[in-house]
């Protein structure tokens, strides 16, 4: 994943903030200049007043005509009214997907499926700015992240899996890979378009058709993607998008016409979904919560580590399942590390997601902001020490200051529960064994970070981390070729890479 643009040379705090001590200006000095606003133009994207469901290649109203509002979390303004899909609509979408799977997509040679996927990748690249602006407005993420990370990676996923569509025989030696059929895919609000790409690209490459339910706070990029499907002349019914509440998603999960369920979201909902498929033959993959340890040893290059820690927890407002939310620092370097972190935090710019200089945008929803606020309060109540840099937050919108907790015990809620916000809990360790024990002391196992200059120590720690992705001397990198997914209650199955295809095929003997 492209770096979070947070290097100290290019981002500067508002005048009200103190300068980092590393600048040699003396602690607490006001910085004598500030950034002018640099908003990305929003007229690149046309937002409709109303959006229908995308079923069988057409936009249709929901059964009963219900709608719900999607809100720009940075302004609290309603962006559009979106169709409130019901179980009746879920059923219609599954039938459309089934028809397409048996009549067009499933029988189409891999070579031809590939070309459709390449088309989609190209259109996403061509319309990247439109998608970036829409994504930032609907989700609250900074434009530089949607522009440099979400949208290019989404296009790259379609590009990567396009090439697999006619090469499945090479991915599964000795087997014939058959599509599973119709996949129900339920995605979260933190990376709306990127999660759509992670789900749809491998499914389509393997010959499945899909019904996708976007998160109810971030439906717009998926609906714009429906427009891309039309532009690509994708056969009707191959991709169906049903917006609506959680019950509609559950109606998809339990629908008899579904062969495969793929879900990304919280562990709590993941368990409900696993129960929803219990006793059936439906295939299931789950990408759930995390509470990653980011372990910094005393020989780590501290300045690089600080960048990695900041990227690890403040990237996308910390609304990242693999966020490095627990910093495990070796005792001998805790003080200099925390000093550097605090300095670095003072340079982070929080504000308008559409401003090209913004590092931390808006929290996705009022509900999420309340959850973060409540967990941070619990950290204070349980005795951890709170640090937040001085920074002005916009008057409107859902914003939260980058937050750092020291003196955190493993038993604190902020060390155990997934906060899904810009909140870092600092714990310490003395020996590698203690680091391993603390890092693995969680029900989650999605990701981990290791910072040390010693190669043999990296490899040993890699082996001992109960985590599906381990970043050594880096953090929060993503790539379509790189499998992603969790151990333990962070879920099962992998997305990305050749391994990501497994989730969408049935293997038959040659």
């Amino acid at each position, binding site marked *: 994943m492209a770096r979070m643009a947070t290097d100290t040379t290019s981002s500067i705090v508002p005048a009200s903030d103190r300068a980092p001590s590393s600048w040699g200006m003396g602690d607490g000095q006001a910085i004598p200049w500030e950034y002018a606003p640099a908003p990305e133009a929003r007229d690149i994207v046309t937002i409709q007043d109303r959006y229908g469901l995308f079923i069988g290649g057409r936009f249709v109203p929901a059964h009963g005509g219900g709608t719900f509002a999607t809100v720009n979390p940075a302004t609290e303004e309603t962006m559009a009214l979106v169709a409130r899909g019901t179980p009746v609509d879920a059923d219609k979408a599954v039938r459309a997907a089934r028809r397409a799977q048996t009549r067009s997509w499933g029988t189409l040679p891999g070579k031809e499926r590939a070309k459709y996927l390449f088309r989609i990748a190209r259109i996403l690249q061509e319309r990247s700015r439109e998608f970036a602006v829409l994504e930032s407005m609907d989700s609250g993420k900074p434009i530089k992240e949607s522009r440099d990370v979400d949208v290019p990676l989404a296009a790259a996923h379609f590009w990567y899996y396009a090439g697999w569509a006619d090469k499945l025989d090479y991915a599964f*030696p000795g087997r014939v890979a058959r599509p599973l059929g119709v996949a129900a895919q339920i995605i979260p609000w933190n990376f709306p378009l990127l999660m759509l790409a992670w789900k749809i690209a491998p499914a389509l490459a393997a010959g499945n058709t899909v019904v996708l339910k976007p998160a109810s706070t971030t439906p717009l990029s998926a609906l714009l993607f429906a427009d891309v499907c039309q532009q690509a002349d994708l056969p009707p019914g191959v991709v169906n998008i049903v917006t609506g509440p959680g019950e509609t998603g559950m109606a998809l999960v339990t629908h008899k016409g579904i062969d495969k369920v793929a879900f990304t979201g919280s562990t709590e909902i993941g368990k409900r979904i696993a*129960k929803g498929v219990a006793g059936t033959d439906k295939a299931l993959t789950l990408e759930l919560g995390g509470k990653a340890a980011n372990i910094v040893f005393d020989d780590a290059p501290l300045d690089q580590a600080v960048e990695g820690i900041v990227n690890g927890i403040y990237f996308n407002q910390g609304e990242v399942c693999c966020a490095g939310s627990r910093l495990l620092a070796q005792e001998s370097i805790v003080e200099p590390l925390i000093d550097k972190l605090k300095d670095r935090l003072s340079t982070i710019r929080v504000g308008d997601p559409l401003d090209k200089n913004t590092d931390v945008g808006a929290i996705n929803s009022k509900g999420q902001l309340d959850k973060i606020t409540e967990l941070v309060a619990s950290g204070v109540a349980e005795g951890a020490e709170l640090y937040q840099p001085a920074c002005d937050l916009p008057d409107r919108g859902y914003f939260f200051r980058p937050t750092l907790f020291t003196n955190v015990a493993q038993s604190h809620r902020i060390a155990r529960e997934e906060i899904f916000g810009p909140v870092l809990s600092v714990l310490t360790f003395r020996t590698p064994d203690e680091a391993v024990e603390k890092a693995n002391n969680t029900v989650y196992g999605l990701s981990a970070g290791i910072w040390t200059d010693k190669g043999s120590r990296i490899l040993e720690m890699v082996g001992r981390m109960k985590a599906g992705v381990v970043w050594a001397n880096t953090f929060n990198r993503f790539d379509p070729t*790189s499998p992603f997914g969790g151990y333990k209650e962070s879920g099962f199955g992998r997305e990305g890479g050749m391994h990501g295809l497994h989730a969408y095929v049935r*293997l038959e003997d040659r």
Partner: protein
Amino acid sequence: MADRIDVRKTYKLYIGGAFPRTESGRSYLVSAADGTPLANACRASRKDVRDAVRFARTAFDGWAAKTAMNRGQVLYRVAELMEGRREQFAAEVVSAEGLRPAAARDVVDRAIDRWVWYAGWADKIGQVLGSSNPVAAPYFNFTIPEPTGVVGVVAPESSSLLGLVSRLAPPLVAGNAVVLLASERRPLPAVTLAEVLATSDVPAGVVNVLTGYRAELVPVLAGHADVDALDTWGVPDDLRTETELLAADDIKRLSRRSTRIAEARFDWLDDAATERPEWIAAFLEMKTVWHPIGG
């Protein structure tokens, strides 16, 4: 009256490398396929399941840490030891499954060969399932399989030896520790296999074998928070949904028999259907590692 009275065998549980009776002090009568009483088997309790899981958890790290080649040799040795007891296994399969002696000998031979087939995967599965990934940035990125942890195996009900071996070997060769529920009506070959394992080089606790009632033990195994994965092949159809609901509570990995496959009619002699690297992969986790290049 015969010249010599037989010394009958007591069939016990196999937990942590020892052969305890069930802590519950219960047993149930096991009969041959033709109805002849064979022996009293232990009717394991929920506490026996918990003890077995504890031993499996303790044994897991050491087993997973063995070199792949070593793990392969240890499992190959199980085949060597079974080879020396072919007649005993054949006799037990005859009584348990009602097969003719020739068919039972074939079953035993195939079970031995299946150990050999799976043992050979130990140092190959990582190369077949692992990958180095060409990411579009200056990072070295690779993916390696690792064992999931403690696996509960509900062994096939009908195929008491060959089916059991076919489902036990895959999680083992992957490096997992196993708590196995033997066939309920045909548990005796499993206990004899445990005696082979006890004298092999498979470390104590890596395989634990319980006999008893499915309806009583499967929910305990499925609901145990320290069991990471479950092979539900032998779960009776009427327990299937309940088992999977319990397993969902802590996101257990499930290796399920398709509802389209009837347990009793599955052909365990079919090598193509039963010698599958996918069965090993079901008990592996993929770990992906990134490191910057240069700098």
